[in-house]
């Protein structure tokens, strides 16, 4: 129960920053080998540290755990609050794992300015980890914005020919979204100072969203400290969302947040930065971008949009015959089918770019996440969250694989390949496994998530599931065609005659992804245990009447902030203390 003073989330988050500083301060520019080894080991260390979360997250208890709470900027009520629920834990682990893999995959690929490269990689890692572990909206936004900067440089310095265009496009596009989101955050912040709004918040809501007594106590602690000022505590903001009336303010707020996240996801029609960024980014950049940065968007929907604006999230008639949810579902379905068709273009085309294909397939795959999220039922949300993880695994793996062949041939043009099975059998086998994962073959990871997400969508509306399933057929179409064009047939191109198969380093970083794919596919329960409670809480927040058997929420008495009284120690659960302000 005592998850207060461990600071594990801070350690995991700031460890990469320390590593980056060490690299900048202590290493000489020309010690490239040393730098890359150090960075890899350091990221490995971070991964090991994050395993603590995996083993110590109490999924029976649920809710936000590993809490930290410190005074930060008292003037505006922003606090340094960290906490992670099961979803965050999985995403943090994915991030730290992909961090190591990204570093490993860069050993050969990056041949200039290694010092800056690995330092930026570490900083990027820290920013993303911060996003997943913040429990304070201000802190979240800070990390969310900062994560853009290292990525911008990674694409802009180590990218392909057109890297500046791609980097600037990526940066500005996502910045536009997050600036609009900032307006939304500010509005929410001011609402926390409005007694008309916050006096309606019930302890039950906070208990539901906090998930466990410790987290609920922190909320109480925060609002007590804030007195009648504003607060950025995420759980409190979520709880406040449920008392906002369904009117133009809520709808505007929803779309302000949604724009910022939809660009990150990316949803149609805000996706065009993605293929450009991927094509230009170095392999590790693509891995982080597809594997993790896209998840910031869907994570945002999961963490903010849906629980903060439950009435808008489920609304289907605000604009007459359709509503906010209809817009989101419509865009999700378009993303699924549109992304798949656009990806198909790169095999239909004679000399398509493999990386662009994978990038567009990401649009399709993230559409499934959005469809599952806005199904707004346990199946759909479980599937969506699992799809975030699974997409992180398989798209990262595919980008790595494309990177491997690019390192050998310096091209990603489909027309250049053919018959690679003959010369690179190991590579072909791994590629096949990942393609099969991507098209949702049962007993591999994506099947679980796509099945659940679409099953959830079916529960909401059979036609949504029908359209979504159609997109999945198309996925199979272009991936198999790609595989055929690259690996089947004879080795026609003499340049491919002497390609070497995977080396030990490539095996080292592909193996965990293969194992994960099989593990999640065969025994997802281990992973789904982490997310079921938080997901159920979100469903309950949106649809209080949804019957979820066996669901329990803590019932800690939350003092109304109007009384200004902190919880007395007697009201706290056993083994639990609150740090004084």
């Amino acid at each position: 129960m005592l998850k207060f003073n461990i600071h594990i989330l801070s350690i995991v988050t700031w460890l990469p920053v320390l590593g980056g500083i060490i690299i900048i301060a202590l290493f000489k520019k020309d010690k490239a080998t040393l730098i890359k080894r150090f960075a890899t080991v350091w990221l490995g260390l971070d991964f090991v540290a994050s395993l603590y979360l995996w083993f110590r997250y109490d999924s029976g208890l649920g809710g936000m755990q590993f809490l930290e709470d410190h005074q930060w900027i008292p003037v505006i009520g922003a606090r340094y609050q960290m906490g992670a629920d099961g979803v965050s834990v999985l995403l943090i682990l994915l991030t730290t794992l992909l961090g190591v893999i990204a570093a490993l995959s860069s050993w050969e690929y990056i041949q200039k300015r290694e010092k800056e490269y690995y330092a930026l990689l570490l900083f990027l890692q820290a920013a993303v980890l911060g996003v997943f572990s913040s429990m304070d909206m201000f802190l979240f936004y800070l990390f969310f914005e900062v994560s853009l900067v290292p990525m911008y440089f990674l694409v802009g310095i180590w990218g392909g020919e057109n890297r500046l265009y791609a980097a600037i496009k990526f940066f500005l596009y996502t910045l536009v979204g997050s600036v609009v989101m900032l307006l939304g955050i500010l509005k929410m912040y001011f609402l926390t100072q409005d007694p008309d709004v916050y006096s309606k918040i019930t302890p039950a809501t906070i208990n539901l969203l906090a998930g466990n007594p410790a987290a609920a106590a922190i909320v109480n602690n925060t609002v007590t400290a804030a007195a009648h000022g504003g607060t950025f505590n995420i759980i409190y903001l979520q709880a406040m969302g449920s008392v906002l009336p369904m009117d133009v303010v809520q709808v505007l707020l929803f779309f302000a947040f949604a724009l910022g996240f939809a660009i990150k996801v990316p949803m149609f029609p805000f996706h065009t930065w993605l293929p450009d960024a991927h094509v230009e980014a170095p392999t590790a950049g693509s891995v982080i971008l597809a594997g993790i940065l896209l998840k910031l968007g869907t994570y945002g929907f999961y963490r903010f949009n849906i629980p903060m604006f439950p009435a808008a999230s489920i609304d289907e008639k605000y604009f007459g015959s359709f509503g906010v949810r209809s817009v989101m579902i419509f865009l999700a379905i378009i993303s699924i089918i549109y992304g798949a068709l656009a990806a198909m273009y790169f095999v239909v085309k004679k000399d398509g770019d493999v990386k662009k294909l994978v990038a567009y397939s990401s649009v399709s795959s993230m559409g499934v996440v959005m469809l599952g999220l806005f199904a707004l039922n346990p199946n759909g949300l479980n599937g969506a969250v699992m799809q975030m993880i699974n997409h992180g695994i398989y798209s990262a793996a595919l980008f790595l694989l494309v990177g491997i062949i690019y390192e050998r041939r310096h091209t990603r043009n489909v027309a250049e390949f053919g018959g690679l099975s003959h010369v690179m059998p190991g590579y072909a086998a791994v590629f096949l496994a990942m393609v099969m994962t991507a098209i949702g073959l049962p007993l591999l990871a994506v099947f679980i998530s796509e099945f659940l997400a679409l099953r959830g969508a079916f529960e909401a509306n059979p036609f949504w599931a029908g359209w979504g399933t159609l997109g999945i057929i198309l996925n199979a179409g272009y991936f198999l065609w790609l595989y055929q064009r690259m690996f089947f047939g004879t080795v026609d191109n003499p340049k491919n005659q002497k390609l070497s198969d995977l080396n030990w380093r490539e095996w080292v970083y592909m193996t965990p992804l293969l194992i994960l794919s099989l593990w999640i596919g065969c025994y997802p329960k281990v992973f789904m245990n982490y997310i079921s409670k938080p997901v159920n809480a979100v469903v309950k927040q949106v649809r209080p009447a949804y019957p979820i058997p066996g669901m329990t929420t803590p019932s800690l008495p939350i003092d109304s902030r109007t009384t200004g009284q902190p919880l007395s120690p007697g009201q706290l659960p056993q083994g639990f203390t609150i740090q004084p302000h």
Partner: protein
Amino acid sequence: MYKFIWLVPLLPLIGAALNGLLGRAFRFSERTVAGLAVGSVALAFLLALAAVYSYGFGGESRWPNPYVTSEGGAFVYNWIPGGAVRLTQGAKERETMAPQTPHNSALDVEWSYQLDPLSAIFMLVITGVGLCIFVFATGYMHGDAGFYRFFAYMGLFMFMMLVLVMGSNFLMMFVGWEGVGLCSYLLIGYYFDRQEAANASRKAFLTNRVGDFGFALAVFAVIGTFGTSQYTDVISQASGYPIELLGHWGIMSWIALGLFIGACGKSAQLPLHVWLPDAMAGPTPVSALIHAATMVTAGLYMLTRTNVIFQHSQTMMFVVAIIGALTAIFAATIGITQNDIKKVLAYSTVSQLGFMFLACGVGSFVFGIFHVMTHAFFKALMFLGAGSVIHGMHHEQDMRRMGGLKKYMPYTYWTFFAGWLAICGIIPFSGFWSKDEILWNAAATNYIPYGWVFWLIATIAATCTAFYMTRLMAMTFWGKEKFLEPPAGGEADEAHASAFDKGLTSHDARKFSAGDRPRHEPGEHVGQTHGKGKHDVHVPHESPANMWVPLAVLAVLATVGGLVGIGPAFKSITGSEHFGSRLNIVNWLNPIIWNPGTHSFGNASHAETATSGTATNAGQVPASRAAEVPHPAEATEGEAAEPYGDTGFNLAHTIAQRIGHGATEWLFIIISLLAAGAGMGLGYLFYLKDTRLPGIWANRLRPLYNASYNKYWVDEFYGWAITRRTMDIARGVFAFDSRVVDGAVNGTAWLTRLSSRITGGIDKYFVDGLVNAIAAFVIRLMSPLVRAAQTGLAQNYALMMVIGLLVAVAVFFYTDIVGAVMGR
């Protein structure tokens, strides 16, 4: 014993994993690979045999109740804990029912195996026939560079297929369903350097995906209706739902439609049949195992497994029958004109699958499964026989270059002969029993209207079957030895000519012509090679023992395998309607077939389960009060049990009213034998007696011949209407994406740049100009003044400071000063 069924799928998987993961690294010898693969399958077969025996006949027999491993805790785990579920489908139907409490409201998909009469049959067929094919393949694939890879895929296939039929819920069926699709993909594309193999494998996978689209939606609907995907729960709940008559469309029809689309994909029914003939690009043992005996019958397994759902929808029963009959005749007519030995067999398989679907559609699921079984025997036999021929002919598949092989390959010939009689439906070979029952049930059905039309179509299709099979026999084994003739040019010889021109040897797999070519080492001497000169001839040779022994085993099965389903017409000989008590397939399967007439299980309308020995056990199933239900074929005696009400004219019943029930059955048996005989006679006439006839008739019926020879242009149509159009759409979408969507983004950027340029211009020339102008003005105006102030005298500066201080004080204390002055 049946507690160990979880080992049955696991064993082949272990074999496959060892071969696949270690075979390459440790350079397993062919012996090791074959030993692992065949050994694991043989063990699985023995285990399955023991399990089925103990389940059905042993001391702890629990037939016909399903055994699910989760009840004994033998092997089970919670696979997908999906979370809470709301029953959103079928609410309208539930209103009309007695209130039911749903099984559970959380989706917890478990991984457990189920043994019941249906899965028992499939387990035995898959492992048994599979074992024969594995043994055969060790000979057939001898010398292939990817020997270990081949057996790894095959073992994986066995695992997936067993999961498909042994899983205890829809999700596991889906796992197996997609899994066998993957293995089929891998195995069709096994010779992946051949373009057509690669294309065929992709086509197979994608066509199946279209089917899976329906299947997936049906699974969603099942969960949305029943709250669970476990068969036992779904089936017991579903039996309480109201029946949807012809023209009525409710939840059961929807689910059945989705499932049926899936079944059409996997079992190659119209309009999704196109992949199966192309799939012949795979090695021949693969065609035998996957594309004849096991995987393609998965659709039948699914229909029978969910027969409760299908029988709730008379419309869907009708649809199933229509599709089945159409497929049967459609594929049979194509089979007549094909020249590739494997293509003939492939279309024959499609056609036979049509028969099986027809059986399900007319309500006799039992005989659908019976035909699955007999078909597995004789079609696997014929495919392996064809493989043996191809092997003996040094990888020639064109029947126009064969003939007279009887002399050279006696074992292959005689085993194939048995298969030929079986598929033609000659008594007492296995095919007769199942096919005849299907025809009879089509004529006598009271499930759907127009049974006689289905009977007529099926009988014509059966005649075609006998015809093209006789044609195959004549062109391959009888008649002139055409391989001795010098190649006469034309399509059949192009492959040969080009191969010889390139100086390749007969067993050289590295040539790019059509067909099934194991990768023998170039120049390796596998059989006798005679002749000399450029276009030399290869004299065929008999295959080694590890190839013909499995053939012999299958030939025995194809001959006597049908005896487990001797029909009621032979009552006078066998002494009972369904001879053999539980060993009779009808008695064995009946308890899982739902009867829409009585709303209970265990009484297919074609059988009396109350034969000796079953009555006691049948009592375990509350539904199997079979004896109380009259035989529908005895409608003449005024006891009609028409499950969905009147279905109009019924051929069999009408005749039975005239001549009596028993005589009618015999009449239909004679008709079906005559049909087979007519087909065989015609085949003999055309391809042995007077070999000019085919050419003459092909010319007379040129349009029909062309349509059949070109497979009714279905492939071309799909290529044009679906593949090309999807590609066009993909192009269009990308053009839209890069021009419109990204154009808007870049346009915004351009606008921003433009406005910044304008603003910059304004700033530079207007705002800054103004500032500069003012500055210049100020300078010009003020400089004399300021210059004047710069006196350089300290006193002046001190004075200015004092004045400044005073002003500052005045400003700062303005209010106080004003207040003091005003006297407040």
